[in-house]
């Protein structure tokens, strides 16, 4: 029973850590390189244990992230919902992709996420972001194999479902 609880806490812990990482700033030059951590972690869990990740959970995490982030309530909820829906929809295929193809798929998902964000911000009246703003999805995709292996390895060590 405690193992189930441990796995539950591990799941919540990774999500909380991703939200915290989202808030931690990078030094000025590296700032545009910061990947969108909550999306990556949610993606991992959506691929690996689907019964935990639902649209409702993505919505909840997104709302909480918005509460922390303070740009627009519902913005990240929308983005994460779209991301999780697409992932779950193609889950069976994504899971059996080789790693480089999976990383490409993640890149497409993250780019889609940025386009959604741009759309929302433009409608909300913000100005066009600088070109360096588009680097982040590529960094996220490049980090994906490492993040995936790290989380998978930790999960195997902790013997968590």
């Amino acid at each position: 029973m405690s193992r189930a609880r441990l796995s539950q806490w591990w799941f919540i812990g990774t999500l909380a850590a991703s939200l915290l990482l989202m808030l931690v700033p990078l030094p000025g030059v590296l700032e545009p390189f910061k990947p969108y951590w909550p999306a990556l972690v949610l993606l991992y869990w959506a691929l690996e244990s689907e019964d935990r990740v639902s649209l409702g959970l993505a919505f909840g995490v997104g709302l909480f992230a918005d509460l922390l982030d303070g740009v627009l309530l519902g913005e990240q909820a929308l983005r994460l919902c779209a991301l999780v829906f697409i992932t779950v929809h193609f889950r069976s295929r994504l899971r059996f992709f080789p790693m480089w193809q999976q990383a490409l798929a993640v890149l497409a998902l993250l780019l889609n996420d940025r386009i959604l964000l741009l759309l929302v911000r433009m409608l909300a009246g913000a100005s066009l972001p600088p070109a360096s703003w588009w680097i982040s999805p590529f960094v996220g995709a490049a980090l994906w194999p490492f993040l995936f292996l790290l989380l998978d390895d930790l999960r195997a060590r902790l013997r968590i479902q």
Partner: protein
Amino acid sequence: MARAREGSSPLFAGNAAGTLRLIVYLALAVVLMVLDQRNGWLWQLRSAASAVVEPVYRLAGLPAAGVRTLGVAFADRQLLTSQNQRLREDLLLANAKLNRMAAVAEQNERLRRLLDTQHSLKLNVQLARVIGVDLGAYRYELTLNMGSRDGVEPGQPVIDAHGVMGQVKAVLPHTAVVMLITDPSHAIPVTIARTGLRTVAYGSRDGDQLSLPNLPLAADVRVGDKLLTSGIGGRFPPGFPVGRIDSVAPAPTGMFQVALATPAADLDRSTDVLLLHDQAEPKGPPDLPLPAGPPQDLAPAASASGSAPAVRTGPAGGALR
């Protein structure tokens, strides 16, 4: 402990129920966004949830603070010494300047009091620290470790040692978010120090410059001109440095000149900032001037020279005729 996975993930999951749920959630998110955009609920919600939100900010700010502490801990002794030396010299210079200015400032104060204006050279400030938190608005925001409990209010100007940084945009009980002057949706009324030309400086899209998009073609603006706050609009007190002009060029339309300026303040390096407490001027037009002449308490004493003005006002009033 094997979980039942069968059925939950069909190979071709194209069921309508999932899509319907997605549409419902997306619609909910859109409704929330529109309502928030109209009513600004998010900040009310955040101050209600500040007990949760603020510790998270402090936690997220720890790495940045840690890096700073490590930087000091492992800094070269020589570096620290030279830095200390430089700061001492700066302080000496500043003090010398202040001493020279003190007499002028006093005179200025007296003259202004004579004119009965509300401008003051005194500063009523509060020191605040920057928390290293990235709130997702590109790089146009700053988070401070003081909030409404410390008397911070939205709209307060924020400055550092070199110039204006921005204004407080929203407050939580112990946190305040500052909108920087380089935010594209921020505008600050400025005057060009050399010529006195008044204009407005907007944030630029790149996020580290100011743009002055509508200078008259005939205006005398040169590279290197300093920008000061003009005090018009009542939000920023007059006379604070804002930036320095980098480039001047005619606008594509040919109707105006466009100038770009670098902010005077260290927007991305300051760790300590000052919150100004003087709200510059009351809004709206100034009160009607009181009857002319020096104010009552400054009027010359009746015994000493009181007779001279009395003689002069007598005939002007026409009471003798």
